[in-house]
């Protein structure tokens, strides 16, 4: 079959069947859940479907955008467990700049830049030390929280555990533009993935570092690059995460955020060991997890069940998928 010039067909023919099936499942699942929520909201006078949909970006934007960054890193066979505490440091920098009277633009830029530089620092460490990325970023998870607390302690004399942001001007990105920022970033990421070479080189590295080296690519440089690219996304996610709240508490903020993001990425069909997956999957994965929680609320299930359902969905979907491919994998192994 001659290669098609249609970019959408190209995009989907590049991914493996496993990922394609997962994308299909998530698309249908999200559509069904949205339909269910639509039916429930139209039956109920107190709630409107549009209001429900417009709430999605405010909750989901940080998860999806950080997820897009992490997807690139996981493509390349790395992982970043420290994204939550990088956001904490970025938030602390934001709070300190606010306290020193900087204008909103400077605050946002400082927050973004902090996240980008810490993520690239992770990449540099992974490349130079030759230790597994899990360990480096696990150490980062501890280190950056300490860094945030010490920064706040030293630079702000009256720091009492929380940095309070009162003016509305400093919260516009999350409160007013979350939907637009999310849309722009997602479209940009998908276009970059479809047309650009960067993410394909990440995938190549994830598939086989040896093959990469033989083909003339530089594995270390690509891995470091994946953390830098991940940082670009993470910075935006950090701005959206931080501006969504009035008080920034470095000791407690964003705990477990990295696990929700990894959950969304993995549910989207990205192979945790690298070399397989799509950006689109991550977006759909995060959306599916959120929508299923909302649909449960409309079905009359208590809010307390949300975390349990999130976990059950991850376990069930991936367990089912793995069980389907298990026989073939075993035979491959024993051949």
């Amino acid at each position, binding site marked *: 079959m001659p290669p098609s010039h249609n970019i959408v067909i190209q995009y989907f023919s590049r991914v493996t069947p496993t990922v394609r099936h997962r994308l299909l499942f998530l698309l249908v699942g999200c559509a069904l859940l949205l339909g269910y929520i639509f039916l429930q909201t139209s039956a109920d006078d107190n709630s409107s479907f549009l209001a429900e949909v417009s709430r999605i970006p405010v909750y989901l934007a940080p998860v999806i955008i950080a997820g897009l960054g992490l997807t690139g890193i996981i493509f390349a066979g790395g992982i970043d467990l420290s994204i939550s505490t990088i956001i904490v440091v970025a938030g602390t920098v934001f709070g300190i700049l606010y306290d020193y009277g900087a204008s909103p633009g400077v605050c946002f830029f400082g927050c973004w830049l902090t996240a980008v530089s810490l993520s690239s620092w992770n990449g540099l460490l992974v490349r130079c030390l030759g230790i597994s990325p899990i360990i480096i970023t696990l150490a980062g998870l501890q280190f950056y929280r300490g*860094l945030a607390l010490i920064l706040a302690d030293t630079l702000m004399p009256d720091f009492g555990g929380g940095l309070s942001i009162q003016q509305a001007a400093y919260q516009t990105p999350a409160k007013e533009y979350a939907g637009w920022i999310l849309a722009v970033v997602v479209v940009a990421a998908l276009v970059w993935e479809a047309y650009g070479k960067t993410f394909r080189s990440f995938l190549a590295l994830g598939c086989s570092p040896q093959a990469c080296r033989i083909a003339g690519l530089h594995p270390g440089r690509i891995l470091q690059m994946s953390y830098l690219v991940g940082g670009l996304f993470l910075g935006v996610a950090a701005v959206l995460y931080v501006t969504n709240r009035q008080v920034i508490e470095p000791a407690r903020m964003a705990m477990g955020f990295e696990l929700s993001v990894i959950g969304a990425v993995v549910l989207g069909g990205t192979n945790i060991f690298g070399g397989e997956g799509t950006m689109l999957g991550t977006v759909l994965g995060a959306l599916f997890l959120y929508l299923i929680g909302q649909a449960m609320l409309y079905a009359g299930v208590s809010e307390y069940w949300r975390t349990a359902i999130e*976990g059950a969905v*991850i376990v069930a979907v991936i367990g089912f998928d793995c*069980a389907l*491919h298990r026989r073939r994998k075993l035979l491959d192994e024993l051949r």
Partner: protein
Amino acid sequence: MTPPTRVMRRFTSWHLLILPLLFVAELAVFAPISGVRFDSAEALGRSSRFYATDLITHAAPLIVLVVGMTAVLMTGGIDLSIGSMVALIAAVMATFDPGASFWWTAVPLGLLCGLGLGWFNGFLIARLDVPPIIATLGTLFLFRGLCEVRLGDQEFGTFYDVPGFAWFGGLSGSLLLITLVVALGGGWFFHSRLRRELLMLGGNRVAARYAGIPVFRRTTQVYTAMGGLAFVAAICFTARNGSVSATSFGGLELQVIVAVVLGGTRVEGGNGSIIGSVIGVLMITVLDEGLRSAEMFHADALPFKIQHLKYILMGALLVIGVWVNRPTNNSTG
């Protein structure tokens, strides 16, 4: 009896000695801060006894968990769900009537619950072939969610009312559990065939299957054992804290993994030592205790809260420990 030559060979590799040396150096720095006094032999004896009691009671639950986690990492797996698992087991036990009947209703049920949750992880990983990191990530959310469903927003502080339960939080209870788990369990494990089978499983799964090792059964057993140890740790924790809420023990899994990895076990599987992991836990506990006392006695020495240094030092310790311990010359590393 181990022949002396074998022992010698184990220690001729110089980086096996680094970890104990690092620990001794750390102890030399933090013991005086934590109140160990060197004025006279008597003061030294008394203060170090206090210090050791403190260390052991704080380290006990972590040591118990670390033994299981080392075995899990040996097989090339990982268990991210233990924090939630401990919380869920504690939550199940907390809702029972805190009388004498607690001992024959809640405790066996907690043990059953621990084994069941561990078995569920093992089932996902061995039977359904889900990668361990994803399976246990999913169960992390699942168990935490069930814990929230069970407890809601309340905090259950019934454990102190159970007769004799607080004993497990004291020195003798902690020592008993540590002895049972590490000295007896770990000692048996070190010389057992099971250990070599697990190592082989982590080194090369296909080869292990060809060698006739029941891969699925061993994997399930390891995760089930991890669940059982999570139950023991839950008893330790609740006996000391006396209460449990829906957010308890978050981040415990990372603490345990830091300790195990610090002890020289590789996350890729195929090697691991329980003694190393125990030293890893002790290092973390010494650090924690030292900074806590420094906060109390020298609060104004630095322009920030000294306890916040804990995160920085723990991260740095992890990277340095692993970097020093990393395999250098051979192809297996």
